[in-house]
């Protein structure tokens, strides 16, 4: 259904000519837009925080396995729990899955383990969650359940309602607040963990805060939308030429960039003919990867410098 800007404005702020317009705008389009903005923002923010924490420009929100674990827990509800793919149980399970993965990660690594150990443990958890997701599809009760899961995993904001927004938003906002509070510490980590500590930064507390913040925010995001790739990796790179490399300043900027990217990608999806059920997660990866390649081409010197 097409609405003119005037009709949308009327539905939002005034008296729409047609009450259906109000329902479309308030219950379908506005929640979807706010969700896209929130999810994009927390993906960008998480990417920036993880790149700052690991001091590695290739880190992205899936680094410690929280999104994979959220995805597994959510699809397990469909595969084994027999719930509907748009049920509110999906985000609830997803958030629990993300937090469980953090618990496991911290249990395995303890406090003060070298970053490499944490990254390796995260990799193991991510692989485990990926395998469990594949198993869920493998053992799905019927063909359609497996297909539903496969499509859900591609990442989409289609048909998400206000209920999804209310479920995910508190976790996304809490995770984002936790991540935004780490700016000073991530900035100090530019000089390595020893110097950061000598500047008064509690390095292991920062690490836990980032891991938990990413799990809360991205876990909730994935639980609602499925896996949306590349935004977390690309958003910080997109804003570095504008705001510089300071990991503290990158946090907020990457959140805005992530929100803009996902909103734009979701608009592209809606522009596609209605018969094609295009998933926004496919678009972000499809557009994101070549864009990332061109960024690398432009910034080869920077990456060469890192390798020294």
């Amino acid at each position: 259904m097409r609405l003119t800007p005037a009709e949308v404005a009327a539905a939002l702020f005034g008296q729409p000519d047609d009450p259906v317009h109000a329902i479309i705008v308030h219950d379908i389009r506005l929640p979807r837009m706010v969700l896209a903005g929130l999810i994009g923002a927390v993906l960008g923010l998480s990417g920036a925080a993880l790149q700052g924490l690991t001091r590695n420009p290739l880190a992205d929100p899936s680094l410690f396995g929280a999104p994979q674990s959220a995805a597994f827990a959510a699809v397990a509800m469909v595969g084994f729990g027999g719930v509907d793919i748009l049920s509110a149980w999906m985000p609830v399970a997803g958030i629990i899955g993300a937090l469980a993965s953090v618990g496991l990660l911290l249990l395995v690594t303890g406090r003060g383990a070298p970053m490499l150990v944490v990254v390796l443990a995260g990799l193991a958890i991510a692989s485990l969650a990926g395998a469990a997701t594949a198993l869920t599809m493998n053992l799905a009760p019927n063909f359609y359940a497996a297909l539903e899961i496969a499509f859900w995993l591609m990442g989409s904001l289609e048909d998400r309602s206000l209920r999804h927004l209310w479920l995910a938003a508190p976790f996304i906002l809490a995770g984002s607040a936790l991540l935004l509070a780490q700016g000073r510490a991530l900035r100090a980590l530019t000089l390595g963990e020893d110097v950061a500590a000598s500047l008064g930064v509690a390095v292991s507390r920062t690490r836990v805060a980032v891991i938990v913040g990413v799990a809360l925010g991205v876990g909730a995001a994935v639980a609602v939308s499925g896996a949306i790739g590349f935004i977390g990796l690309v958003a910080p790179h997109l804003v570095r030429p504008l705001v510089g490399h300071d990991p503290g300043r990158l946090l907020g900027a990457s959140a805005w960039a992530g929100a803009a990217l996902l909103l734009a990608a979701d608009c592209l999806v809606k522009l596609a003919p209605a018969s094609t059920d295009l998933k926004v997660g496919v678009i972000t990866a499809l557009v994101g990867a070549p864009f990332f390649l061109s960024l690398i081409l432009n910034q080869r010197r920077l990456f060469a410098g890192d390798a020294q």
Partner: protein
Amino acid sequence: MTGWLALQSVSVVLGNRTVVADVNATFAPGQFVAIVGPNGAGKTSLLRAVAGRLPCSGSIMLAGQPLAAITLSERARLIGYLPQGHQTHWPLPVRDIVGLGRLAHGAGDPRRLTGADAAAVADAITRTGIGAILDQPATDLSGGERARVALARVLAQQTPLVLADEPTASLDPRYQLQIANLLRDLAREGVLVLAVTHDLSHAAHFADRVLVMNRSQVVRDAAPSAALDDATLAEVFGVRAASDASAARVPWEVLP
């Protein structure tokens, strides 16, 4: 105020190796102390223990309190720590790197420093002579520039104790002398400076006191001429002072 920094039976064990064994020493503000010794003698580990970055047994007292009881943020205002290697992971401009020293005093964004923070950064920049490279990315510097920028960051922190691990490594002779002079001046202003160095003639010339470490122990702790006598040089380093050269003389000085 002897004993402002006091180490008592300090030992550091890494894995199952004792890298610092039973070190006892007290230091007063305003001293420039050089820590010398062969590679692997435990110099860096001792410095890291004093910085609070390595767990150790024994006791370290700083400004009348046990080091372990001093919070991280209080420590940051007491101890400036300059490790080896001068890591910088992101290409921040030099100005911002120096500004990071002010995080110890509660500053947030190094680009928005005011008052005492801005003054401390400006002073550190002048002292280390890095005014010409302030806008360069810190990852694109020569070894000598990196060393001076790292030192400037510590100076900007304005701490009464400075721990410097090979601050003059990879510097050309002129900057080596400048940095050594700078650390000595800092000590004259009342800062306690502990510097690990491999340059025995600098240690002899600039330091008020030399700690010689060998096989994880402090084997000499005295004024330079006494600590670096012929017997110690032979036993610890396997070298001797060339015929008429006194170890206490540096053959160069910085041109104005």
